[in-house]
Structures are given as structure tokens and as C-alpha cells.
């Protein structure tokens, strides 16, 4: 699956299901297996971060990392750094105590009409 397949709903679904942060990874710009689809992911991620802010949440809970298969060490350190950052933000508690904001009932929404 290409990062271009990333539907923003997936990210909100993960947050609503109890994730405290979501990392999205893809091939480096210019090195997309599908030519240029990672650029589309980039656009969507910026949108998502704005939406997250709209919910009153820290946009830092979403991070985008470009990494190639040859960059194992860098990828690992990015993951470790992201975990630390999210830990500093604290737990989100969505999805746990039934505390899901009404706006994020993504599975239900996507079935009929996904916002662009």
C-alpha cells in the first residue's frame, strides 16, 4: 500500500480506537514506487494536522516520516523520538472511557460519505 492510499479517516480511526499518536511513513519525495503519490499523502497530512487542531488536539500527535528501506537506523530513531514526543503529550484517552468525540465516528461516516 502506498502512502497515497492514506485516507485521513484511518488516522482518526486509530486515534479514536485508543492510539495516542500516529506515524505515517512513506518513500522519500521523488522516490515513490508509484511515481508521485507520496506528495498526495503530504497534502492530506497537512490537512489532518489542521483538523486535529480544530478538535483542540496537539498536531504533534501525527508525524510524517519519509524513509527508504536503506534507512533502518534513521527509521528506528524517528520512531523512538516520536514515542517520546507523544509520551510527553500524555495519553489521549479517546476510545477508552467511551470518550470519543461525536465528530470522530469515522467508520460510520466513511460508509456513506467521506469528507474529502
Amino acid at each position, binding site marked *: *500500500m*502506498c502512502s*497515497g*492510499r*492514506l*485516507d*485521513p*479517516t*484511518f488516522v482518526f*480511526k*486509530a486515534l479514536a*480506537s*485508543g*492510539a495516542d499518536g500516529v506515524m505515517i511513513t512513506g*518513500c522519500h519525495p*521523488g*522516490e515513490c*514506487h*508509484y*511515481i*508521485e*503519490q507520496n506528495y*498526495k499523502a503530504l497534502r*492530506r497530512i497537512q490537512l489532518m494536522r489542521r483538523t486535529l487542531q480544530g478538535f483542540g488536539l496537539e498536531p504533534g500527535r501525527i508525524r510524517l516520516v519519509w524513509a*527508504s*528501506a*536503506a*534507512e533502518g537506523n534513521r527509521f*528506528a530513531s524517528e520512531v523512538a523520538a516520536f514515542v517520546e514526543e507523544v509520551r510527553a503529550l500524555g495519553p489521549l484517552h479517546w*476510545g477508552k472511557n467511551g470518550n470519543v468525540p461525536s465528530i470522530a*465516528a*469515522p*467508520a*460510520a461516516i*466513511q*460508509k*456513506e*460519505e*467521506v*469528507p*474529502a
Partner: protein
Amino acid sequence: MTENMIENTSSNDGQEKIGVYVCHCGTNIAGVVDVVQVAEWAAKYLKHRGVVIAREYKFMCSSLGQELIEKDIKELGLNRVIVAACSPHLHEKTFRTACANAGLNPFLCEMVSIREQVSWVHTDKAAATAKAKAMISGGVERVRHHVPLEPMTVPINPATLIVGGGIAGIQSALEIADAGFHVYLVEREPSIGGHMAQFDKTFPTLDCSACILTPKMVDVGSHPNITLLTWSEVEKVEGYVGSFTVTVRKKARKVDEELCTGCGICQEKCPKKVIDNVFEAGLGYRKAVYTPFPQAVPNFPVIDVPNCTYYEKGTCKACEIFCAPKAIVFDQQDQILTLKVGNIILATGYDLFDARRMTNYGYGRLPNVFTSLEMERLFNAAGPTNGNVVLRDGKTTPQSVGIIHCVGSRDKNFNNYCSVICCMQSLKFAHLVHERTGATVYNFYIDIRAAFKDYDEFYQRVLEEGTLFVRGKVAEVSDVPRVESEKGKLIIQVEDTLIGKQRRIPVDMVILSAGLEPRKDSKETARTFGISCSANGWFTEKHPKLDPVATMTEGIYIAGCAQGPKDIPASVAQGAAAAARVLGKIEQKAVALEPIRASVVEERCSGCRICNGLCPFNAITFHEDRMVTEINPALCQGCGTCVAACPAGAITGTGFSNDQIMAQIEGLMMLNVEPEPVAA
């Protein structure tokens, strides 16, 4: 709440019978993940999600492991399979085949990577085990939404495109052409032959390089099944395995190939001498109209436009005047050709490391420092000095020569990899210098890497000849003497690591065994052909051990140094292997495409056309009459961008449907796990 929604979409309403198979992979997984506990947990806590059996086994990919799965499918009536093992890159095919053997649609089998994504990247056993459970839970939730898929078959065009006319490309071309299929061989230079045509002798047998290469070149030139396109470059590649459409630019030679007889009079009469930076490695001259070397195939010259006096000043035309068949065409234009092929082999070769970058070795500043490619030309009887090994002054024979290994290789400041050929090449130089000049020869090495047949024997031979070996990476080559005996010499300063002392060794000539680098434009080439390359720029093979000639893109194969540094026998072997793979594909006549494709549910499509501009493969067409969008399944590569973009949810992606991914996320978050039973 959301659960019901998902369950009702495409899962079989509780009819799933799922088998979970957890692999130890020896200790690869079991060393970090408590495999037994994971299997027991899956059987117990995912039972209500349809898991009817969960097993662990030492090597699931072994035939016994596969039989285990097949047996369960038959006996327990499993209709879904989860294999928690290595990356699907390695064994997805294995397990899908096993399922198919047992009568289960292979796309109802899903792999969960608990080796690459769990055991290899974690050390905390408890946490790793928990993560493995979560991932299996995700896999189980996902596989519930899998549907049987049938691969689409497309016919294979039997013609093949080979890019690069070095020894690897030549070998591939001959193998395929001899088997009776058509080959287009595209080469960027005016002649095929590649680097091998520049060499003098080949290690370890000391065969004359040209003597063994030129018959093959002639075969290529005269083969009825080979269309040879030299002085040409691929500009665009469209399509997919079986039917690629390739656009090739045939650069204007300014010579009519139909009329030219290859007599060579134009080269003789051309008054303009140019340093030949390609074939003579900058050590010799050619004319502005030239064939790179006498045995060039094809034997038509090209006019070097930037250096030709006619194009500069509008006068001269010496070549045209003397050309009897009137083959010189000054206003000839580039031609754009469109080729239809079923498979492609990339054999684009390597560039030599630019030794000027290591300023401490003085190449380009100190005249008597030479690169390995320059030396090949110096040794070559057809080279600029007729095979005489002399200093840059063109006449003095060196009395002492230092050969430096690993120039630009195994060095994090330049290239961190070993260039493979330089040790043997340096040993060959040592032998040839001895033979031609009788000079004292020093070899400066870090390690001698003389693996493969008869290579170490050659090392022994060079030792026997009295070559002086110094183990140590040379620190600098200097022309600044400290004592009388160093005056007028090049001084090689090095730690002799076997003595543990710094030495300064004065010599007359220094040879730098420069490493191999990917072609400067290799990343661009990879993009054109839609394959990937490593951070260094070498093309990435499908599997480093088990599939070293295929790429991740179906129908595109790689051979020779484009994949990584290698010597002539290895290039030939890989060229032949790539050809064999292509011939195998051609013989299949049709190829099954992965059924991971996007498709439009027409009733849902509102005709908004948001998806239309997104597809990089031009697989999306809009039907004005019906105001709906359609996706061509043969062109679609399954990236999924349009699926994510469709505001109406009208596009579905098989293998990566919204249902599947949403369910997998819930599974990963362990939302559907049976709660811990109250003690009873």
C-alpha cells in the same frame, strides 16, 4: 458501535473459520517473542472472532509447516489463514500457494510480520510478545473482510528491451536472440562494448579483453533478432509487464547509417583533435567525428557536435568533402522511436569513482598519479602509448610503482561499500607492470579480497613475482621530499600496519584503484523505469539472495554492475540469468497480475472527477456520456490514491479496502479481544 457496521459490510457474518500459525523462525522470532504464549493466547482470546485453531511451529515455511496448514484447511474447514512469521516480501507466495494447494483461495491468507516488525527490532521480551499479539489481532480482524480474488492475466509481448550494451547487456541480448525472440538493445554511446572494451587483460586468466569481447559484439551487430540502437537513450516507459511501451531518442549521428560504409576516411581527414574522456579515459585523443575504437559495433562514426568546427564556425566540412558515399548529414535530427516490448532488462553499468575527490592522493594535481581506467588504456596495445607503461611525460619508464587499493571505497567519506573488483584489478596491474617494465611494485591494501575461483591463486602468483605488499590504507601521496632520496619522486605515506610504523615510500608512478559507483543518473533511470534503487544509487533487486535479477516491478530485470559492483564473470552470469527469467516469462505467453486493483462502483460515482487527475499510470478514464469514471484494471498498479481521494466512497481497492484497514486498526488496538474471563 462501529463494530456492527464493519461486520455487516463484507465479512461472512460469523462464518469465518480462521487458522493462526505462529512461526518460531528458529530463534529469529522465538528468541524475542514468546511464540507458544502468543499461539495459546490467539486460540483463547480470539476464538469469538473466528479463530478455530492456533499453532506454533519451528519453521512454518518448511514443507512440514506448509503441510500443517494444508491439513487444517482440509480437516477443519478453515476459510481464512493468518501466518505470523517474516515479512510478506519473503514468504507470502509460499503460504498463498499452500492455501491454494488445499483448495483455499490464496487471497484469503494474510501474513503478519512478527520478525522484521517485532523480534528483530525489539529486545524487551514481554513487550515484544504483547506487540505480536496485537499485530495478530489486527491480522485476524482484517482477514475476516478478505474476499476471494482471481488474478487477471495479460498476454506477453515476446520482444524484449535491453538497456546498456556492456558485457552484461550483450550476454542477455544474445541469450534471448539466440532463443528466437526479438531484442531491442539500446546503448547511449556510439558503440556497444562498455567498460570491458577499454580493458587490456582480464583477471585472473589474463585473457585479452578485446579478443574475447569483440566476437560477441560482432554477433550482436549481425544478429537477425537484435535491433541495435546505439547513440540512443530511453526517455519514457509506460505500461506493465507483458506490454510496455518505450519511447527511445535516437540521437542524431549526423551520419546516414544506410550510406556509411565505415571506411574511416572522415576520421582521418577531420582536423579537430579532442581529448577522449570516455573511451581513452582522458588519456588519449580522438577526432570530432569518430568511432570510439577500431572494433566498434556498429562501425558508423558520430559527429561530436559541441566540438565540431563546422557547428562552431560554419566552415570546415572536411568529413563531408572526403566522404565518397555522401553519408555525412549535417542537419540530421534526433529520431523518436516507440517500441513495444513485454520485458525489460537494465544493464546500465557503473561509473568510475572520481579520484580527484580524494585530494590527499593528488590525482589531477600530481602528473604521475593515474587512475585504474587510465592504466587499462596505458597497458592496452591499442591505447595511446601502444601498450608502453610510461609516465605522464609520454616517454619515461617508471622504476617503481605504487598501487593503492580501496580508493573511494570502504570509506564513509566517499562510498562505504567494497567495490569488489579493485583487489583483483590491482593484482593484475602489479603483474602487468612487472611484465612490461620490470619496475619495483608496491601494493597498498587494507584486506586482499580474492574470493572466487582461481583468484587467490593469482594473488600467490603475484607474490611469487616479488610484488611488495604493504598492509595499510595510504594516508597521502606527496611530492614534497623530506630527505634526499625522496627528491623528484612521489612519496607514498602510509602506516605499515603489520609493523606498526609510518613509512614513506618514494615511487615514480602511483596507480589509484578507484572504486565503482552507480551511474550519475541512476536514480533518474530508476524513476523512468519505475524501479527502486538503494541510497547509494545501485538498483535494488527483488530479493538480495533469492531473486537477485528481478526487481520489485514485474517485467523489469537488472544485470551487471547496475545492481552493484561485480566482475566480468558475475556480470555475464547475471546477464544470462536475467535473460533466462525473461525467456521463462515469454514462454508463459501470459502473465497473472496481482489482483490488487482499484475499481469504481458506478452507481456511487457522482462524476466529480476528483480522482481523474491523481492517477500516475493514466488508468482512469472518464465517460462523458454516462458521467462516470472507469479504471482500467490492467493499467492500475494498486497504489490506492484514488480510493483515498474519492469523496463518495465509490472507489474500492481490492486487498486494501476501507473495511479491511479499519478492521485491522481496531484489531491492532485490541478492541475486539475477549475480555479476561473472571476467575471461574
